């Protein structure tokens, strides 16, 4: 059994590109759900919007990646307006229903034959999507690999910029939630009518929170498209959103660092159990599982872990249990 290999693979994933993508999606959800109390179950649609903006602008129209990033942000804003304007005047549950439906609608639309010329149909868009970004890579051309983490030169550059992006977004969220704006938004989470009765236009604040969270999610999608150099419609399944929620709750909702720590731990555990089980089966320690079962078993373990979390530490890692109990009134 190669413990070094298990550790290397696990760490590489725990702070790798995937963790960054999920982390950004979870930061977006933190703004929407953690602070504003908006149940967005369609975060994956915003991520997909970011990815597809890169794919379409760079590959289909052969334009600049930097333009694509701008387009991704605009598309996410429009998507938030489209989902928010009809539903944010209604009760919270309606947003949840509309967003989960919209995220599937988005995925099924972009993969349809009708838009195959522009969006690539079920195969998606594959090619040199992030070339312009990878051309800026300052790492030495003969870069081999870091001591413990097995990233390629290209991956390492994405990871570095990705975590800088996460840090920048986190600072922005931190500045916002400690401001009077954040106070209004938290007030809306607690009781909308009370905030209305104090003269705040609640609808506008909810829309702002939905847009901000959606744009942050779209940034995750942009990172995804740039790092993987491909956009696949079927990677944007609803379970992406639920993993992002798991990350958020694991770290602690309405905590600035919750999504970062949550994402790292989530991928550490998910990758760790996968690598460990794979190695253990190979070494003959476990004989009742086939190597092909590992991918599913790790999600079973993850689910059990999540249940345990909800029972023993419902507030997540950074949360305050007393604060959570207040909600019971």
């Amino acid at each position, binding site marked *: 059994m190669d413990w070094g290999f298990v550790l290397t693979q696990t760490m590489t994933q725990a702070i790798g590109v995937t963790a960054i993508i999920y982390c950004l999606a979870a930061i977006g959800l933190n703004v929407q759900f953690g602070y504003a109390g908006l149940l967005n179950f369609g975060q994956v649609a915003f991520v997909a919007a970011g990815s597809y903006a890169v794919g379409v602008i760079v590959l289909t129209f052969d334009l600049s990646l930097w333009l694509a990033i701008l387009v991704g942000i605009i598309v996410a804003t429009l998507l938030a307006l489209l989902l928010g304007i009809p539903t944010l005047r209604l009760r919270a549950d309606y947003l949840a229903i509309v967003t989960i439906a919209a995220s599937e609608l988005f995925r099924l639309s972009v993969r349809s034959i009708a838009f195959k010329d522009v969006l690539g149909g079920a195969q998606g868009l594959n090619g040199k999507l992030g070339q312009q970004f990878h051309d800026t890579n300052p790492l030495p051309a003969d870069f081999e690999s870091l001591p413990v983490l097995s990233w390629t030169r290209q991956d390492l550059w994405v990871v570095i910029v990705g975590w800088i992006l996460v840090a920048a977004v986190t600072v*922005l969220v931190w*500045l*916002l939630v400690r*401001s*009077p*704006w*954040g*106070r*209004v938004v*938290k*007030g809306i*989470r*607690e*009781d909308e*009518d*009370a*905030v*209305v*009765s*104090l*003269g*705040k*236009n*609640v609808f506008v604040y909810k829309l*702002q929170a939905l847009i901000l969270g959606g744009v942050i999610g779209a940034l995750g999608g942009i990172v995804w498209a740039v790092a993987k150099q491909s956009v696949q419609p079927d990677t944007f399944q609803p379970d992406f959103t639920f993993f992002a929620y798991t990350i958020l709750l694991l770290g602690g909702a309405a905590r600035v660092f919750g999504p970062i720590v949550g994402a790292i731990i989530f991928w550490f555990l998910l990758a760790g159990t996968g690598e460990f089980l794979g190695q253990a089966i190979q070494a003959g320690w476990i004989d009742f599982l086939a190597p092909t079962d590992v991918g599913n078993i790790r999600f079973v373990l993850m689910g059990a872990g999540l249940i345990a979390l909800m029972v023993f530490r419902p507030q997540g890692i950074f949360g305050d249990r*007393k*604060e959570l109990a*207040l*909600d019971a*009134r």
Partner: protein
Amino acid sequence: MPDSTATAAGTLAEKAKAALSQVEARPGVPKPDPILVADHVKRSFGGLTAVNVEHVEIQRGAITALIGPNGAGKTTFFNLITGFDDANEGTWTFNGRQVAGMAPYRLARIGMVRTFQLTKALSRMTVIDNMRLGAKHQTGERFFAAIFPFLWSSQEKTIDERSLALLRRFNLHEKVKDFAGSLSGGQRKLLEMARALMADPELIMLDEPMAGVNPALKQSLLGHIKSMREEGTTVLFVEHDMDMVHDISDWVIVMAQGAVIAEGPPDAVMKDQAVIDAYLGAHHDAQLTESGEALTEGGS
């Protein structure tokens, strides 16, 4: 304590009483200086007409009580006037301005601030944050300005000072950093009232401020409501507790089955036959059964 407030207060309280002394006690009577005038306000839920108010005026600077038996439509009327519910028909003016159909947050901004029957303390926010939220015209509440603290930090300081002064007045100054959700029911009522005052209301509308509050706290709430009048705020409140209504209100409006059935100074209203009938039923002192008779005799 009541004595000192009475003498110090004097002027405005007496002025409010004096202005209303010449007003006839009948439903829909015009007032000398109304802040709120409502006409033909109607709201039905299916076949049930919850509110059907022909005409009512609220005197500026006075404490007006809105009373009536359960289901009289008091809270629904509150919701309609403050924009939290939509009237089927009717118009109403606030400070002479047509405000029917205006969004509730805009009504709050122009000075009509309400509280709720079920207290709405923002549980997972601190007491001071609850208070700060009440302040109007905050630069830092704008999305892009919020990112730059130097744009709003001086305003925040002023808001903090006002919040602390109000919390001291409402005896909540030791709870500043506590979560609002950890306060007792009575303290939440106080907080909600103080928070409403942060919004500088011209007309404050209190929906059952005394519900579920212990007698000692009731007295201090009464004092706070009186002090609002002293500061020139018009108070309109819904209440069940007749003693309290009698104690503090300058004028009483009685609703039953959605309509205003009586108006007048507290003493006159409580003797009004229509009011007694609405509360107790028109035949409340008629004998219903023989056993009832026997019981009364046995008792005396």
